[in-house]
């Protein structure tokens, strides 16, 4: 049940929410629409589901255009961000609703509900009302409800944003396992990069209504196609400068810019974990602060002639030996990417 979206455009008044987006989700894959809030990912999902109608473009599910089909006829499962469980119905009734609507006989309905309850770990909760469940439980009921009518496609709109961080981790793993068991083509929307990367087979990065890049998590991380993608995924250091003699130099950092004309203004994007630094005199910079972020450490430094630099290391990294505010450091960059300077940016330092 592959899903294809072709040249989708959606406007709300004068605001363009989705701009000529085309993407393809392969059958049985778990894909993520990743991007900042308000970027259009939920709108795309809703258009696929039929809850929203596109102004231009087509939605094709399983090689058949569904543009003319109402949401209730598309046989898709939708899991809402805030669960949208039917408040006055029990867990069992919620899960069975889609089957009731399809006039599935009571016996068969009961069996299917029981199967789903077992599959999603909801045993003992069947007679409870949504108000009596925790956030994680509610979300699992929402998924069970969506899966009950055996949809061709499962769509999840920021499914884990409304639960605690702890529960979120568990739910992500659980969703991945569920997908591995069921192999229903699934798309979920998230603004959390870690979530997309840890769960999805493929990632589609959406920003301001446009598709920035599509690929596996590894592809997107190691080979960001645009500056936005590079900046969106993880903490980055940004330096602007002009190419000279085939290199872009900012302070002590030098990156090869092959094939670029001299004098071209360019922007360097350097990931916080794509570099090494260690204590050294006289060094090329000085440490300002060292922050403990749980299992990682963030070092804020200032490079001579370049400006602020942020670096991240695992806590136990040997590189951190002797690093403290005020000490001098040397820096080695493993990967940096160059992008053309966006029009209208302030020029070289």
């Amino acid at each position, binding site marked *: 049940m592959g899903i294809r979206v072709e040249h989708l455009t959606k406007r709300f008044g004068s605001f363009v*929410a989705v701009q000529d987006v085309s993407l393809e989700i392969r059958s049985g894959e778990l894909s993520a629409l990743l991007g900042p809030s308000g970027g259009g990912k939920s*709108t795309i999902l809703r258009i696929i589901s039929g809850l929203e109608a596109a102004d231009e473009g087509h939605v094709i599910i399983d090689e058949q255009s569904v543009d003319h089909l109402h949401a209730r006829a598309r046989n898709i499962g939708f899991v809402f*961000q805030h669960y949208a469980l039917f408040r006055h119905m029990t867990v069992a009734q919620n899960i069975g609703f889609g089957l009731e609507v399809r006039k599935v006989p009571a016996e068969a309905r009961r069996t299917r509900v029981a199967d789903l309850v077992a599959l999603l770990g909801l045993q003992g909760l069947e007679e409870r009302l949504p108000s009596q469940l925790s956030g994680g439980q509610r979300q699992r009921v929402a998924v069970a409800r969506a899966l009950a009518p055996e949809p061709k496609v499962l769509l999840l709109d920021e499914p884990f944003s409304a639960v605690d961080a702890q529960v979120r981790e568990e739910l992500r793993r659980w969703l991945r396992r569920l997908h591995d068991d069921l192999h229903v083509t699934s798309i979920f929307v998230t603004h959390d990069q870690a979530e997309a990367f840890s769960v999805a087979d493929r990632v589609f990065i959406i920003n301001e209504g446009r598709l920035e890049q599509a690929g596996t998590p590894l592809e997107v991380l190691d080979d960001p196609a645009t500056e936005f993608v590079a900046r969106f995924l993880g903490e980055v250091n940004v330096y602007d400068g002009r190419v000279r003699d085939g290199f872009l130099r900012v302070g002590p950092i030098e990156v090869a810019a092959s094939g670029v004309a001299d004098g071209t203004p360019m922007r360097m994007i350097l990931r916080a974990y794509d570099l090494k630094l260690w204590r050294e005199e006289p060094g090329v910079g000085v440490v300002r602060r060292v922050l403990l972020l749980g299992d990682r450490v963030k070092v804020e430094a200032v490079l001579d002639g370049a400006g602020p630099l942020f670096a991240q290391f695992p806590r136990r990294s040997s590189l951190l030996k002797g690093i403290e505010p005020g000490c001098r450091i040397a820096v080695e960059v493993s990967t940096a990417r160059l992008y053309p300077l966006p029009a209208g940016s302030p020029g070289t330092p």
Partner: protein
Amino acid sequence: MPDARPDAFRTRWLPRRVALLALVVAWMALLLLIPLGSLAVGVVQFGPLAVLRQIGEAGGWPALGRTVVVAIASVVLNGVFGVAGAIYLVRHRFWGRRLLDMLVDLPLAVSPVMTGLAFILVFGRGGLAEPLLEALGWKITFAMPSLVLATVFVTLPFVLREVSHVLVELGIDEEAAAATLGASASQTFWRITVPNIRHGLTYGSTLTLARALGEFGAVLVVGGAIKGRTDTATTFIFTAVDERHEPAAYGMALILAALSMAFLVLLERLKKRRTREA
């Protein structure tokens, strides 16, 4: 909400929605707008000047004046007792609180004529309080005091409930903070409580005023609508219809309707201000 959808606030006008809206508008027009409009038309047909003259001749202006006086008295009395009562019922705990609370709602369940009857049975001739009233030389029924009593009864819950609601929403935090800072009970009341309930009080008082203006059944029974003494704007309309002074009746009715609409607009504005500060 992620992806805030401006579209959510623009209605897609499917045919069935247009039909529903049309049905509702037609219903409201039939029951409300058209009758209201016809009243205005009727007065215009009689000739506004003739209407005003006839109202004067039939003694309408003193009656209207009396209504205003009674209404203001009700607002003042219910303002004081309403605020006090709200505080006692919401912030205090005492034996009989539930009972008093139920009493406050009763006037809404009682038909106006029954109210009038009840007051006559207590304050009228042969009534419960007769000996006391005679001793004091007070005349209540068929006199102004009864009009005030009846109107206060009928409008009792409004200020009290509005202020109660505000007090419950506000909670005691501010008052507790004042206490820790050394404020006395009266200082807390005047400088913390009163400013906070200001809007609820205004809203409730406007409700009271509007309702008092329109009170009919109770004042009719308890006052007797004695011309020049206990007739109000509403009883004036009633007797004017009876005596076939249609222009006077419709004229006064239009005046009251216009006043009510003015109050309605005022209430809508107050409602918005009240929900904004919540």
